[in-house]
């Protein structure tokens, strides 16, 4: 009896979590364009989508911003995490404290302060400023994620490598990086998620020429959304879902290995 109640509750919450997405997927196949009642099945909106250059451009921008900021913040975050772990320098404590600011500060404050600095430096708002903003809020998450793995690794291993004549470069690329891989990957995944999910900071730091998908949808909500947006969202969701399935299968395999050990 208790089990049934628990499972029912889980189902209920998952329905709550998936409902707004399922509804958009459903309506992307709807013959009516009003998003009100499901009238019949069509792929018409998918065809429309490929004619809609504004939407496709916003999708392209979203992917560029997410891709570039994930790669850059993962590289910088990994280097920084190692630097902060290995070396001490003046002001290190301040750096460590400042790093948590993007994690805890309300996004809107980060958004408007970046906007103000861009204006101060006379940077024209566009893809570049948008990517820079995304890099800004992603780096600390990568550092935190890599650092948690760094603390667990055995420093004797790199000492041993050094005694055996490995150069610093060799130690970093052949020993440190492979050991940090789980942290680097989960940091990258986090950065990608945050970048794809962001609305608030993008809203202030993207110029008129750099509309991302959420910003496009935001402006369309006021004027009326066409169902080809639903089609685009459905395609993106499939993409994300496949990505997540792959990562879950990999993690489950690892879990299995740990259990069998």
């Amino acid at each position, binding site marked *: 009896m208790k089990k049934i109640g*628990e499972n029912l*509750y*889980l189902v209920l*919450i*998952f329905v*709550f*979590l*998936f409902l*707004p997405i399922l*509804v*958009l997927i459903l309506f992307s196949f709807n013959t009516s364009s009003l998003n*009100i*009642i499901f009238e019949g099945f069509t792929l018409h909106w998918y065809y429309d989508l490929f004619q809609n250059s504004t939407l496709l451009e916003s999708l392209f921008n979203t992917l560029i911003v997410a891709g570039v900021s994930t790669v850059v913040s993962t590289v*910088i975050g990994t*280097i*920084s995490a190692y*630097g902060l772990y290995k*070396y001490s*320098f003046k002001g290190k404590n301040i750096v460590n404290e*400042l790093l948590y600011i*993007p*994690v*805890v*500060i*309300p996004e*809107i404050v*980060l958004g*408007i*302060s*970046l*906007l*103000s*600095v861009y204006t101060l430096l006379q940077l024209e708002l566009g893809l570049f400023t948008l990517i*820079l903003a995304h890099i*800004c809020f992603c*780096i600390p*998450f990568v550092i*935190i*994620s890599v650092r*948690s793995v760094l603390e667990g690794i055995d420093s004797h291993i790199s000492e041993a490598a050094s005694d055996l004549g490995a150069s*610093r470069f060799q130690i970093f690329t052949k020993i440190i990086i492979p050991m940090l891989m789980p942290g680097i990957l989960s940091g990258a995944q*986090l950065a990608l*998620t945050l970048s*794809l*999910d962001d*609305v608030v900071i993008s809203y202030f730091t993207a110029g008129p020429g750099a509309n991302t*998908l*959420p910003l496009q*949808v*935001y402006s369309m*909500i006021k004027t009326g*959304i066409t169902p080809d*947006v639903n089609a685009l*969202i459905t395609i993106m*969701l499939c993409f*994300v879902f496949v990505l*997540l399935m792959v990562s*879950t299968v990999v993690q*489950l395999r690892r879990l299995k290995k740990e*259990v069998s050990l």
Partner: protein
Amino acid sequence: MNSKKLWKFFFICPVIIYVSLLIALPLIYILLISFFQSDYYGGMISTFTIQNYIDVFDQVYISVFLKSIFIAGITTFICILISYPFVLAISHKKPRTQKILMTLVMVPFLTNSLIRMYGWLVLLRKSGVINQVLMGLGVIQEPLSLMYNMIGIIIGMVYTLLPFMILPLYSSVSTVDPYLLEASSDLGASKMKTFFKIIVPQTLPGLFNGSLMVFTPALGYFFIVDILGGGKMMILGNLIKNQFLTARNWPFGAAISIVLVLITSLVIIAYRKLGGKMEDLGGA
């Protein structure tokens, strides 16, 4: 410079440049602007005035502050209420099932939050799916007002921020020793007693972490209030956004932002006082 120094330079330079240019500089600049004066044409006069901070205490703005804190508080409370039974139910499953269910929690989280708000708009509006279904079933005669009011805003906030409560609470709950729960029930404690005397104290770090990660963003998510509140409602996020983009009074917008940062700092100080660790916050 020898190779050792060069190597160190390579590892610490990026982070120093990053925190100075992309974190410290923007925040210091906002603090500076908040003491400037607006010229009412969208520009700023660089003087030193505390007028912007005095203006914040106008009754109109105080009520926005209170409303924001109220909405963020209710959202946090509802997220806690939903998350505890949820993570407890998940923790009773096999490890493999747990992993799959927690991944499923993350799936909607991977589509953009604004797009999910659009999904709620389709569901909640007068001619929306929920009202159509309920009227079709004959449960109600007239459509319910589920959005353009407080209900819509709270639904949107809880929905968007729920994963931030579920994730830390789940990792906290999975550290509770199951034998402790068994012992408690063997010794005759009721379910309620076990929950409040054992589970809650043992999961406090996750609870504080989640509350912080739900409460502070909820103060600023202007787009949720915009879409589901119908433009009449206003929280701090909307106020700051309007000052920067519509009214173009940057100094006043900056002053409100600084006050928002102060509120956030108080929450963080409380979190640290209660034993919370900063490095746990980014681990979601």
